[in-house]
């Protein structure tokens, strides 16, 4: 059996004295899909930030067996510059991730997520759904091994949801490891190999 790509043991996160995540343990094998559910405030986003390398645990251990820059992260925020265009944002991230054949990859993602026509528009003029699509392009730009998605279905219209479901299926078929926090586990049930239901700490 392959070594887990993510292994968490007794994971805790506190902000000051306030615990937001308490005693979380799990293992996720390469190519698996972990679905994280729980009520608002249960620590889903915090857990994903820990896995994404954006925060350090207050207690417990978290092993991620892939390079930090081979993680693709979609958070609540789109992690883009609102006064840059979609093309400029993705070009900046493509340079930082050193994406080979950057322009072709960016063009392909923008086409796939239906943003090609709006590629020269500033993000400040995008709708929430378009911004979420761009955030997905950014998260997947560097073809990450571990894809961490926090509420990826939020703000998407029916066409966007269909595109996302197809993309998740493609990623799973390509052997990518997925961690998805969602309030709608039914949408990713067919992909899930593991499930954590968090409770408020």
């Amino acid at each position: 059996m392959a070594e887990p790509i993510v292994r968490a043991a007794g994971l805790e996160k506190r902000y000051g004295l306030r615990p937001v995540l308490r005693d979380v343990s799990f293992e996720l094998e390469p190519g698996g899909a972990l679905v994280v559910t729980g009520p608002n405030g249960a620590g889903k986003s915090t857990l994903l930030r820990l896995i994404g390398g954006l925060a350090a645990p207050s207690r417990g251990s978290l092993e991620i067996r892939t390079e930090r820059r081979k993680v693709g992260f979609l958070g609540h925020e789109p992690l883009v510059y609102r006064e840059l265009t979609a093309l400029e944002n993705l070009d900046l991230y493509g340079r930082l991730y050193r994406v080979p054949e950057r322009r072709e990859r960016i063009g392909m993602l923008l086409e796939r997520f239906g943003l090609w026509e709006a590629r020269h528009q500033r993000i400040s003029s995008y709708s929430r759904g378009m911004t979420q699509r761009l955030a997905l392009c950014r998260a997947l730009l560097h073809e990450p091994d571990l894809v961490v998605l926090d509420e990826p279905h939020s703000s998407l219209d029916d066409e966007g949801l269909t595109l996302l479901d197809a993309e998740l299926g493609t990623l799973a078929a390509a052997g990518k490891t997925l961690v998805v926090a969602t309030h709608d586990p039914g949408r990713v049930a067919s992909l899930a190999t593991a499930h954590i239901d968090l409770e408020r700490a």
Partner: protein
Amino acid sequence: MTAYLGDVAALARKDLRLELRARDTLPAMALFVVATLVVFHFALPAGASEDAAYGLLWVALVFTALLGLGRAWTPESEAGALDGLVLATSDRSAIWLGKALATLAFLLAAEVVALPAFALFFAPLDGPALLGVLLASVGICAVGSLVSAMAAAARGREVLLPLLFLPLAIPLVVGGVGSSISPEPGAYLAFLGLYDAVFAILSWAAFEYVVTE
């Protein structure tokens, strides 16, 4: 090393592009420094020494820099872009260096406006004084980009930034004023160069811890 410098250049270029587009920072800095010099011109009593005027120049420059630093990380905090950069850069110090270089470009541009205005209202600056301004600007942007990143992540950023930055800027004011009025400015310029080197290395090494929760 080439890849690291490529990251720094891409990040600094992004800040310049954002400023050219939004014009949020540079016009505010230029207007502020000129307005401050005008106020000082009328506030300084007739017959006051030139030394006092040089001191006021440094007050104006430090507070102009503070204005720019207060806005430096605004684009990163608007849509979580700092998290995106933290994930994407192979060495997170490139984020600090890119920001420091962009802030330096804005501060130097404001000084291009401020120094002729100072010469008009008070007295021209000689070579050592100009070199002092350049060296102090490097130090201001090196340490300022670090502490403004710390302040940007905090709740009371408007209060926290001056509290963190101004004590660290005092040596730069001392060196800057010394290089402007001393008959032997060499020691002050060397002091400014040493400050720049020490604080640039400290800021470069510390930035990783500033951007990780």
